[in-house]
């Protein structure tokens, strides 16, 4: 990491104050270094970083369509290989482009085994167009297309397990990370770009505007997601979980839910005990699946 200290994601982009994805972009480029070609899909990051004729990127960056970042990256990688060049090809896409719209091209690129790193910054909805639900939106979150009200408690479906889908494609390295743990993000990106074959990284990037919290709390919210077990940071090598971040005395999910506007319908007019218990069950299941719980006895 020492050889590239210059800023590759410049100031002057138009992200909201305290933007999680903007921080993710900086951390990603810290990990990849300058010998990188970035392929982006449509999404918040594309819109705020490149309003023509401005661009925040200090590395070659290309955007084509919403759905085909993985296909464009495949072409770039094949061309570089033919020319004998060694740039890292990195896709940086939002969760909408990754979980829903770009699925076909991603599946194709992973199946063909291109040497690309696909990075999804996961802010858990289509934020750029005004907060519509995506396949990555968690259970019970309020979005404009899954509104909470008298007849609904928000998004009806749980989050799609995309890392598992791509592990089934035979990806050699898959990792999840959170911007709340910046050094961990940089380390995982470095490892991914230096591992041959298609690799996938999913970065939890809280969105102040879409989730409804103050921009100053972006890191705190990200940390709470990890500490409650609703987001698990793990690394998967050849389909096997190699390492998962352990959590000491995991917190109840309420602590994460009650600080965000997208879950406030669970707390008023009164606490919706039944729905909160369902979300707690989701956290408990993933904690058990990855074995992240460390319980310390209280001193007597």
């Amino acid at each position: 990491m020492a050889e590239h200290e210059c800023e590759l994601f410049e100031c002057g982009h138009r992200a909201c104050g305290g933007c999680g994805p903007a921080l993710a972009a900086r951390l990603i480029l810290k990990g990849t270094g300058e010998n990188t070609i970035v392929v982006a899909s449509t999404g918040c990051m594309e819109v705020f970083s490149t309003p023509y004729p401005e661009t925040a990127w200090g590395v070659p960056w290309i955007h084509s369509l919403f759905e085909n970042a993985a296909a464009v990256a495949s072409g770039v990688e094949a061309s570089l290989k033919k020319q004998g060049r060694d740039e890292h090809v990195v896709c940086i896409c939002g969760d909408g482009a990754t979980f829903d719209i770009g699925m076909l091209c991603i599946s194709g690129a992973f199946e063909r085994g291109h040497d690309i790193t696909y990075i999804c910054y996961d802010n858990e909805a289509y934020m750029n167009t005004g907060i519509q639900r995506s396949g990555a939106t968690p259970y019970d979150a309020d979005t404009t297309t899954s509104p909470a009200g008298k007849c609904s408690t928000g998004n009806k479906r749980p989050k799609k397990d995309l890392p598992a889908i791509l592990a089934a494609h035979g990806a050699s390295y898959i990792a999840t990370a959170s911007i709340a743990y910046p050094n961990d993000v940089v380390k995982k990106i470095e490892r991914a770009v230096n591992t041959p074959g298609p690799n996938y990284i999913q970065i939890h990037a809280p969105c102040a505007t879409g989730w409804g919290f103050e921009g100053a709390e972006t890191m705190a919210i990200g940390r709470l997601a990890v500490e409650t077990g609703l987001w698990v940071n793990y690394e998967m090598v050849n389909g096997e979980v190699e390492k998962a971040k352990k959590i000491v005395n995991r917190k109840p999910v309420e602590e994460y839910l009650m600080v965000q506007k997208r879950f406030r319908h669970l707390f008023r007019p009164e606490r919706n005990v039944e729905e909160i218990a369902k979300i707690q069950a989701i956290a408990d299941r993933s904690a058990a699946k990855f074995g992240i719980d460390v319980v310390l006895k209280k001193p007597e």
Partner: protein
Amino acid sequence: MALNVGCAAAPGRARDNRTGSWRVFKPTFRHETCTKCGLCETVCPEGCVKEREDGYFDPDYDYCKGCGLCAEECPADDIEMAQEEK
């Protein structure tokens, strides 16, 4: 074949857009209890906090949007947010 469709921009030209004008709350880096850990530089979504020659950090007010993430995360509680009079 040369690329003849689409459009290109010079790298890092977003610097033309001085986002400091968005700011409502201005962070002041006091440099009193600062331990020079550099977390403010790491967490800034703008990337506008830079290390000085003496090892302390300062934000570039031309670009700082005043989100307050650095003040919230500072382990030494050395960054103060105050409403800015313009």
